[in-house]
């Protein structure tokens, strides 16, 4: 957050607003727990680490989603890409479990990318179709029942163990984050994503291979979803039907709350990190408050819409 505060620019505003909101959530939650239980567990390292571990799955999905949203596209195939990668990884098992899961992500990303970039089908429709196809394939594969395959020890280690008192999943999330940040800010591919998302025609006429860029971003999204799926299977020891369903909307929300322009071209990765943290903490505090599920959904949705109202307008006007 320090670097964001140093040079304040228009795209930093959402990051600051969401970071402020995280503090508000923690303070309100603490007031509640102090009042009801007389303790302040929300600021304990253990609680925060546990939240970050939960957040790692969402964070990895959101990192990939951000690459696609930066292009002005969207990847709705994430739920079943994630599930398929988890199911394939556990089904193959052994040393090949991880490569198999990642390969599923790459394959789905390639299909999505080719459909959007070369066949010029709107990503909203195409990825939705791919999601449905993946679901069909997985139901076929499992016969509609919960698969009996167990996660490999490596998967369990990555998702559920601790290293130096810190959950390994957080290290995985951090590694993915470093890769994404390097990719976005220090490679031609990352710069091309921003250029293409801002104005595809101008990027194309600058000699950027915009189709490859689109395919690349969808592959990145597929790989991220697959990674999250492998971790999630390790965390719950097995893959199960619909395990990815809870990640699509929060991932999009985290990216957009973090200030990435939904029409593409603008956004910083730190924003996505903050967005993920916000969503995870909001969920957790609401459940600590024993808010009934219905109320949680209403508050959760209202916060997302409210945050977008706060800064969604001026980021749009920048499109000029």
């Amino acid at each position, binding site marked *: 957050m320090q670097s964001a505060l140093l040079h304040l620019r228009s795209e930093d505003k959402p990051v600051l607003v969401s970071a402020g909101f995280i503090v508000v959530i923690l303070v309100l939650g603490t007031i509640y727990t102090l009042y009801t239980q007389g303790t302040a567990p929300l600021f304990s390292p253990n609680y925060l680490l546990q939240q970050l571990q939960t957040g790692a799955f969402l964070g990895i999905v959101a990192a990939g989603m951000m690459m696609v949203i930066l292009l002005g596209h969207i990847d709705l195939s994430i739920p079943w890409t994630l599930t398929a990668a988890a199911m394939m990884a556990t089904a193959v098992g052994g040393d090949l479990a991880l490569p198999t899961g990642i390969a599923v992500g790459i394959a789905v990303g390639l299909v999505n990318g080719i459909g959007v970039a070369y066949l010029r089908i709107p990503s909203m429709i195409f990825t939705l179709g791919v999601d449905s196809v993946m679901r069909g394939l997985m139901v076929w594969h499992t016969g509609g029942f919960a698969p009996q395959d167990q996660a490999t020890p490596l998967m369990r280690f990555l998702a559920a163990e601790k290293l130096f008192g810190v959950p390994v999943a957080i290290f995985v999330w951090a590694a993915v984050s470093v890769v994404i940040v*390097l990719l976005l800010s*220090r*490679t*031609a591919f990352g*710069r*091309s994503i*921003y*250029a293409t998302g*801002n*104005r595809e*025609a*101008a*990027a*194309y*006429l*600058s*000699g*950027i*291979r915009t189709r490859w860029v689109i395919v690349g971003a969808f592959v990145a999204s597929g790989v991220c979803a697959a990674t999250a799926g492998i971790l999630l299977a390790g965390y719950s020891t097995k893959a199960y039907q619909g395990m990815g369903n809870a990640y699509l909307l929060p991932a999009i929300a985290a990216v957009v709350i973090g200030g990435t322009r939904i029409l593409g*071209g*603008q956004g910083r990765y730190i924003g996505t990190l903050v967005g993920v943290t916000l969503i995870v903490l909001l969920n957790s505090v609401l459940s600590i408050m024993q808010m009934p599920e219905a109320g949680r959904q209403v508050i959760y949705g209202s916060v997302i819409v409210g945050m977008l109202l706060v800064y969604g307008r001026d980021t749009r006007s*920048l*499109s*000029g």
Partner: protein
Amino acid sequence: MSDQPFLQLTGISKHFAGARALENVDFACKRGSIHAVLGENGAGKSTLIKIIAGVLEPDSGAMFLEGQQVRFSNPAEANSAGVVCIFQELSLVPDLTVADNISLAAPPLKFGMIDRRAQYRFAEAVLARIKCEDVDPNALVKDLSLSRRQMVEIAKAVGKSPKLLILDEATSALTRKDVETVYGLLEDLRQDNVASLFISHRMNEVERLCDTLSVFRNGRHVETFTKGTKTDREIVRLMIGREVDAHFPPKPQAERTAPHLQFNDLSWEGRLKGASLSVGKGEIVGLGGLDGQGQKELMLALFGVLRGVEGTVKVGEKTGAPLSPAAAKREPRRICLVPEDRKTEGLMLPMSISDNLLAASYSRVSVGPFIDPALESEAVDAAIAKLQIKLGSPQDAVATLSGGNQQKVVIAKWLMTDPDVILLNDPTRGIDVGTKQEIYRLMRELADEGRAILFYSTDYAELIGCCDRVAIMYDGSIVAELAGAAINEEAIIGASLNLHASGPEAVS
């Protein structure tokens, strides 16, 4: 024919953001006459008809219809006063039927609902009047050919029973047979005492149809005269006669170098029809002609944007057109294109100046897979210094720069790739005089460094001042090549209008 003009304009002026489009224009046209409006690109013809048709409101001046002062605030008001315009860009709704389109503004009603049968009969009658019985009123407009659509557009206008009909390049997309039909229609309308304003770049059309001609230049009405009182040469001279307001760097002694960029017989989807030209190293070749004669398509074809281009292209020793801009900019061709619209094709406006400058040369500032920040800022600083781009910080959004500096960013972006062939699509459009001069100087410097430059401009003065040779495009092919002293406005405009045409033409 009465002596009172049907339409009269007095002292009409219109400015757009400081630039004058029309200055104190007096203009009149009579019923029962076909009146041609002539002028170069940007002479104010389009603004004039938009004001008459109610699309634009004048800044000052008055407009009279049959002696009554009128003020149209939208095209519907103009229509109800009998002023109907057929614009260059079609205004049909593609997903509605022909009959729907013809009576779009005021459909026949029955109990408050559209009376489909009456609408169909009306469309049939109007189409019959313009001899387009082959068009089914129930066909969807999007299923019709461009030529048929234009005829529906004309039917739509005729269906409004105009007293004054304005045709803005309305025959440009028509087949020869339809053009004849439109001529017949205009003759009929003249008999019916309708006034027609006819805007066309085709001198032979004007010669054949019109009885009165008005020439516009630089937003002013120069002269109105009856057909036959002036020769073509005199008309062309009236259309030019403009003060030269730019200074150009001196041209070197003309010596033809070996051709570096050559193309032969380029054709593409009816927009390019066998264009051939060669450009040598160190040479600036101008591309002239009226708007939309295929200049833009030619540049896009050479840059690898268009699919299905026929003909041969040779750059240096490399034969064949590039298949994408990414291929065009690399070895061995090293072509660059400064596109027509810098805001949508040249720049990513919300992104920083530095990001825009680097957009074509990531590989030049990378070490291994990663962009090196030191190389990056070095390259950006060098580009900014070379073109003297005036800016606050390279991290500012490029949208914050003035038009001239934005164009410099586009040019600097390409110079970073060290191109051998530079295609410039009207690079000085809409930028200030000072920056224009800098660009002229830069072009000459680049040519002296041995690059081949193809330079399209809508400003004849630039073609004359900057270019070693000028090629004029007309209807998708290059109809004239001028060199040395032969590069003058009369020759350029004459060739642009294809006055000495021997090539194929829509009407002869």
